[in-house]
């Protein structure tokens, strides 16, 4: 599903965020990306989201060299990748329902079909009863779950998450991770950047460990 070949990323010609990264994630796998802050986790995810392009090497997603995508193709690529952001990136002037419906609206879905899917996604994250609320009325954990619902409403084949449990207490973090495992169980490839080592250890999935922009360990699932 994801293939990194000798990928390097420099910012401003000097600072080397990633150097010589090689790994492969198979379809349907669930992978954690870990390392201390500044190790390059976010940079790596940004390359897959096409928010950045590598300065060296190639990134392939589903067999396509995404570095070669024309800028006009980028939106269509992004629609196939669900992303959960640490800071949720919700729109605070519209309801939970409309936040989750946004990816479908962008794709021009029929409103009834969209409503059906939005409710299904909200139901999955346990927030169906809050669909009319505004994001500001929700707790951090609930906002994160809205972000997850929005990422999966499109039924993407690849789900990325950048520190999805960043500011949550251990119980909420475990709940969120359980959600990701559910999506992985129905075939979605999941990649999660997190520095919550205790939680990761308990979940027993493959772990990619980054240090100073280098891949220092690739531990297969126990």
């Amino acid at each position: 599903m994801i293939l990194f070949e000798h990928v390097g990323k420099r910012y401003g010609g000097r600072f080397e965020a990633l150097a010589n990264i090689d790994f492969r994630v198979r379809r349907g796998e669930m992978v954690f990306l870990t390392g201390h802050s500044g190790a390059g986790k976010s940079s790596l995810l940004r390359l897959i989201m096409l928010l950045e392009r590598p300065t060296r090497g190639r990134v392939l997603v589903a067999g396509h060299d995404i570095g070669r995508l024309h800028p006009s193709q980028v939106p269509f690529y992004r629609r196939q990748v669900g992303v959960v952001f640490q800071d949720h990136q919700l729109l605070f002037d519209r309801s939970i329902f409309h936040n989750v419906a946004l990816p479908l609206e962008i794709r021009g879905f029929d409103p009834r079909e969209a409503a059906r899917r939005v409710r299904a996604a909200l139901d999955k994250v346990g927030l169906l009863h809050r669909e009319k609320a505004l994001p500001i009325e929700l707790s951090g954990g609930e906002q994160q779950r809205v972000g997850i619902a929005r990422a999966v409403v499109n039924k993407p084949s690849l789900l990325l998450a950048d520190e999805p449990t960043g500011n949550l207490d251990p119980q909420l973090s475990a709940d969120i991770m359980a959600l990701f495992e559910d999506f992985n169980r129905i075939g979605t490839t999941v990649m999660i950047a997190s520095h919550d080592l205790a939680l990761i250890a308990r979940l027993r999935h493959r772990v990619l460990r980054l240090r100073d922009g280098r891949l220092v360990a690739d531990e297969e699932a126990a």
Partner: protein
Amino acid sequence: MSRQPPAPPRGARTQRPRSSSRIRGWLRHHRAMCLDSARRLLRTPIGSLLTMLAIAIALVLPAALWLALDSARLLDAELDESATLTVYLERHVDEAQAGRIGEAVAAQEGVARTRPISAAEGMAEFQQALGLEDALERLEDNPLPASIVVVPLDPAPEAVRRLAGELEALSGVDEVRLDLAWLERLRHLAELGSRLALALAVLFGLGVLLVVGNTIRLAVESRRQEIEVVMLIGATHAFVRRPFLYSGAWYGLGGGLLACGLLGLGNQWLAAPVSALAASYGASFTLPRLGAEGSATLLLCSTLLGWLGAWIAVSRHLAEVRPR
């Protein structure tokens, strides 16, 4: 992962709407953004009105000048009809001779019509025009010669000048007057006016672009976070641009409507003194109105200008707004 030839990622299968439903979705988004942008404008009525007023003021001046020129052109067309020559006969010519000369003039090549004016008729017209009856009545003798008004076939200045030369060579003809000089002057003025109007229209059109562009730039700035988020989840530039294009078009349309209203008001305001002025010259002249066609043109232009201004502003900005 296998390296298969291009195939969309599967996994939990991304569903792509069929093309017919995609078109419907596209139309739906247009309709939604059209209404949504109108609602946003109405949410800040004073600000929107000020922007539209700025657009209207920029449109009124060139539109008014264009109207004035249009009526000048109408006047010019009438004058073409009356691009006449006046053939003055020698004073000693009697009525029978005048009739013969008149026939000769009418037979001349390039003459469309003639109208003979006897000395007595000339006197009567002169008195009527100047209102100098008393003074002229004291004259013992009619000082005016008989004349023939000639309407040429070709009103072009060179042709008229050539015809004048030919008529002057006829015996019994004292002088041929042609009133070309002031006609040409009027033409030059009209040409100058229309160029001025065009230059003004271009300048003020740019003004409208700037007004709309600046307003839209602020709107984009205030919705920056929203734009970043929708771009993160796969919105195309066209999708992001759409609501702002509709806002621009609404501003343009509103400005155009206000401009039409201002022109109508101006017309009312000036109508009375203008017709009084015209009446004092013994003419009847009404100020030109924009009319349905003119209003439609103005509205179309203003809407397009608003749309274009928004397009430029958003496109310039989209290059800067990069999802973080």
